[in-house]
């Protein structure tokens, strides 16, 4: 049967198991939206306020469910509005398929109305991208795009579909999702070398990254940690992979990591790094970071081996599969001395970072919120101090419950991501944001209202771009260039104006009551928590420095 290009898009998305498309209409995707709407019983869609919000929503949907997110936008400005969202997904390895319409091929290359070369623009921020030039290839391109987004190290793929392809017709032959073809090929002798390294180590530490989350390898990781008797530090992306109450868990390492976690890294003689790429925010000064220890690096992406940190031994493969292979061979070891050293560091008074509780503080807010949330409820964050506080104080229990822009550090990610997660998880979702970040994409509250999504938005309002202010306090003699903005936004009224509910809390004594009300509210609700504007994120290892220079007091 002959069907239109627009219908082929919809049929192939359904065939790939897609249930939700995030997007925004326009002239160059009007045909696809038309086909989408007519198939709404089989494939639903959500329209955002801005394409960036839709891209973050598709990303949040993917991060929280593990399925591929799909976002759709029109040509020109619609397509360029996706760029930050695609880059965010790329840097955090989220499987995403972005579909853009473009002008007809006869108008391409002529600076036609709303024409941009989105393939060229997104080349450095996608795993692969396509400009469809032949309708007969459309279905297979979409299938291949899903396969690429999902295989190996996940990531975004963009498909640009000119108008004439959408309205053209061709024969459609139904297909199936071609499941992951990825196979881990680790050689026996490589495993042996890795085991030897582990067995020879006296003070091994595991450094777990986002790869554990995307490969669903928590169980294997915990078994591995138990077998080799090593503590587990995490990157921010790997935080939700280890339950907060697990005895081997140290928490986040790096610039704003837990002191005990960063110290333990510096005391180790072997780092087993799993599913991580050693971002500069995590390593600090690389010379100090690597001095006196060896690295066993396990990752699915061969290009990560040796890119930032030289590996003594490396195992390339799906971390779940590699860990299973290792676990099958390893015998249980006990490292009593090392264990005691770690406990000592953990018990040290400096390691217990508590905030000044004479006033309402972020730690209090985060811990109080946790009293209202279930273990599998998703928490999204924006970018800044509040993001670090959530990483430090929120008690994560399950993988995929922390959605945060780690690699790109995109302010404005949170609201869209929370929408995607609320839709994907079909559960209440919490967003922790700052007044700066929220201002970036707060329009998307309207999307949450239209769809009556149960999102609790906690705005930590310090009346400043806090993270930058902290750097200015510490490194720029308190010159607060561009970070004290004197906004007059009334977030409670804003919530009400958009059809949501709003609360404000200034006093720690009212915190619980306010949260109680907020968590009973139907639909989206804002809780604005007024916090001190010089509250700091501590500890802090200054950029490019090491644990030796850690700042622990404000």
């Amino acid at each position, binding site marked *: 049967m002959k069907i239109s290009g627009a219908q082929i898009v919809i049929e192939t998305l359904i065939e790939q198991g897609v249930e939700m498309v995030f997007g925004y209409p326009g002239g160059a995707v009007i045909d696809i939206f038309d086909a989408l709407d007519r198939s709404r019983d089989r494939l639903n869609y959500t329209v955002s306020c801005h394409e960036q919000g839709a891209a973050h929503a598709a990303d949040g949907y993917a991060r929280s469910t593990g399925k591929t997110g799909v976002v759709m936008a029109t040509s020109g400005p619609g397509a360029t509005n996706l760029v930050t969202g695609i880059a965010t997904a790329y840097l955090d390895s989220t499987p995403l398929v972005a579909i853009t319409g473009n002008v007809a091929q006869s108008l391409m290359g002529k600076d036609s109305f709303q024409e941009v070369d989105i*393939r*060229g623009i997104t*080349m*450095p921020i996608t*795993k*692969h991208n396509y*400009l469809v*030039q032949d309708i007969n290839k459309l279905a297979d391109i979409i299938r291949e795009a899903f396969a*690429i987004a999902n295989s190996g190290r996940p990531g975004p793929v963009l498909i640009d579909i000119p108008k004439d392809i959408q309205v053209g017709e061709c024969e459609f032959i139904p297909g199936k999702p071609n499941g992951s073809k990825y196979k881990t090929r680790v050689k026996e002798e490589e495993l042996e070398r890795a085991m030897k390294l582990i067995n020879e180590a006296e003070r091994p530490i595991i450094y777990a990254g986002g790869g554990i989350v995307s490969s669903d390898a928590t169980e294997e990781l915990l078994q591995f940690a138990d077998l080799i008797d090593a503590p587990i530090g995490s990157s921010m992306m790997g935080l939700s992979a280890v339950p907060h109450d697990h005895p081997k868990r140290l928490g986040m390492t790096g610039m704003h990591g837990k002191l005990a976690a960063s110290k333990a890294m510096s005391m180790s003689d072997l780092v087993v790094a799993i599913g991580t790429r050693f971002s500069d925010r995590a390593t600090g000064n690389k010379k100090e970071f690597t001095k006196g220890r060896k690295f066993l690096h396990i990752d699915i*992406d*061969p*290009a990560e*081996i*040796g*890119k930032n940190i030289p590996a003594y031994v490396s195992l390339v493969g799906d971390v779940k599969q590699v860990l299973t292979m290792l676990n099958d061979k390893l015998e249980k070891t006990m490292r009593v001395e090392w264990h005691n050293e770690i406990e000592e560091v953990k018990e040290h008074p400096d390691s217990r970072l508590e905030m000044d509780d004479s006033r309402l503080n972020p730690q209090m807010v985060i811990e109080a919120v946790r009293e209202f949330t279930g273990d599998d409820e998703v928490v999204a964050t924006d970018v800044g101090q509040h993001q670090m506080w959530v990483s430090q104080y929120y008690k994560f229990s399950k993988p995929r419950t922390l959605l945060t822009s780690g690699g790109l550090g995109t302010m404005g990610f949170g609201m869209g991501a929370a929408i995607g997660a609320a839709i994907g998880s079909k559960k209440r979702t919490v967003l922790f944001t700052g007044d700066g970040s929220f201002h970036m994409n707060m329009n998307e509250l309207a999307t949450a209202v239209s769809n009556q999504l149960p999102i609790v938005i906690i705005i930590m309002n310090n009346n400043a771009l806090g993270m930058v202010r902290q750097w200015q306090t510490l490194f720029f003699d308190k010159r607060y260039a561009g970070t004290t903005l004197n906004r007059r936004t009334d977030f409670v009224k804003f919530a009400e104006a958009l059809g949501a509910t709003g609360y404000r809390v200034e006093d720690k004594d009212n915190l619980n009551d306010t949260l109680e009300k907020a968590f009973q509210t139907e639909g989206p609700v804002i809780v604005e928590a007024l916090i001190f504007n010089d509250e700091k994120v501590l500890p802090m290892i200054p950029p490019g420095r090491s644990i030796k220079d850690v700042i622990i007091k404000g």
Partner: protein
Amino acid sequence: MTNNLSILSLLVRNEPAVLTRISSLIARRGFNIDSLAVGETHDRSISRMTITFRGDEYVKDQIVKQISKLHDVIKAELMDVTEMVARELLLVKVEAKNGQRGEIVQAAQVFGANIIELSQESLTLEMSGEVSKVTEFIEFLKPYGIAELCRTGTTALGKGQYILN
């Protein structure tokens, strides 16, 4: 740091924009390339590229790994320089004055170059050879006055059974 010239051979899908994908990756990762030569293979759906670049072991490792990640790249391999033949094609137009032509023709014979076009004012030569040989020939011709020249960049194939596929 060893900054010897390395030769990277690629088999790539002959798709639109494949050259852009590779060159933009090289640029954004900060690799320095000396030359890039590309053309179809006997299978029209596949092109072969030869890239020469300078860099230490880290650069060599990363350039191969990063390029291999591109979907359109079928194979990327650093050539073993002792097991390959490499050639570059040169076209050069020399402003040969009367009385100098004889010298140039003689030199062309020594360098294995051919005269492919002759006019009153100039002489166009072609030559293929290893990069160093081509450079040498150009140096020789400079005093006679080079009007313009074109170099293709290195292309290379492995010897004997050393086949990229």
